[in-house]
């Protein structure tokens, strides 16, 4: 029965006039052809609607490990409603923790994007979708 259900769901998608992936707004401002990794430290985690936001402070260092530049990235993600059903909790990220984040960056070149995967130091991976 479950397989039948999936087949029916797929068939009917083609007849639907509006099935948003991201309910609130178009994600056309993000470049989904350019996956990009950020290594940094969480400075803000907003567990809010219509979107969650994660701020990550990323250091650029010279060959001696000295910090040349620090940039704070603003990363937008799914609502708490969607993320909680993908295993997230309001306590999933805390300020100060180090993370590796896979993102689609903003097309306009600003330090922002939408996050896809958050890899924590303990090995846990949090996914936006799936």
């Amino acid at each position: 029965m479950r397989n039948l259900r999936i087949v029916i769901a797929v068939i009917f998608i083609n007849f639907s006039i509006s099935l948003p992936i991201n309910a609130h707004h178009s994600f056309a401002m993000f470049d989904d052809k350019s996956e990009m990794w950020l290594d940094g430290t969480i400075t803000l985690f907003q567990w809010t609607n219509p979107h969650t936001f994660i701020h990550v402070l990323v250091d650029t260092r010279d060959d001696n490990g000295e910090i040349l530049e620090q940039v704070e990235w603003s990363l937008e993600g799914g609502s708490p409603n969607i993320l909680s059903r993908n295993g997230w909790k309001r306590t999933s990220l805390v300020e100060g923790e180090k993370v590796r984040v896979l993102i689609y960056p903003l097309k306009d070149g600003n330090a922002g994007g939408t996050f896809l995967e958050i890899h924590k130091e303990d090995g846990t991976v949090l996914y936006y979708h799936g």
Partner: protein
Amino acid sequence: MAKKISLNCFLLFIFLFDYSAYAQLNENNFDLSGVWMNDNTLDERLKRAGLTRLDPNAPNAPPPQAVGAEILTDEYRLIYDREQERLSQLAVGTAACGWQGMPRIMTYPYPFEILLSPGRVTIIYETESQVRRVYLDRNEHLPFDELDPSYQGDSIGWWEGDTFVIDTVGFNTITTVGRGLPHSEEMYIVERWQFIDEDTVNVEMVISDPLAFREPLVQEIVYSKRPSWRIREYHCEENNRDAPDEDGQRAGGLAENLN
């Protein structure tokens, strides 16, 4: 003691009375009550497949929808074009908040909960806590002078075998039917909630509008029950960083006010 017995008799009477009202719902052994989710959303399809978004085998996003502005009458095509021109002045990704109303609320990627009570089916959507009330205890819509244009309209419902039918009229024109397509106050929607099994319904929505559409729009969506889910809160204005400011740029939300 006598008082207690008479109270019990009264409560029993109320119980039996209410049960008789429920019975018309249950003759099919299908139960509308519970938490339901749109099975067609990207996240639900990925979860069924056990995949994540970047998996090479991940199902694609839904294809571009076939139905667009060509279904609009000339008058409503002008309304559509004017609105698209206004939106084109805003920065990409900006989005204001607002109620979706019918029929868009049905396609949102959030669940809804159905409650049954005598003469009534109540649908509580997670999205903006919007509520639809479907009346089983009357077979006519409200008279015109009481039919105030609204986001969800006036709904009456009845069973046809395995299918729960909802007929809705009386919409305001603040909403679109999706993809920016406007509609008039004359829009009417017939939904056929057909049970596939006890936990799954296929909802066919036929959306007609003699003023705005050249032909009815037909949407079909599969929903299934999620007994372990609880309905959360979702209010778009909580922290809408994507709201357009007066220059049409992203306003930035409430970042400084939140922890």
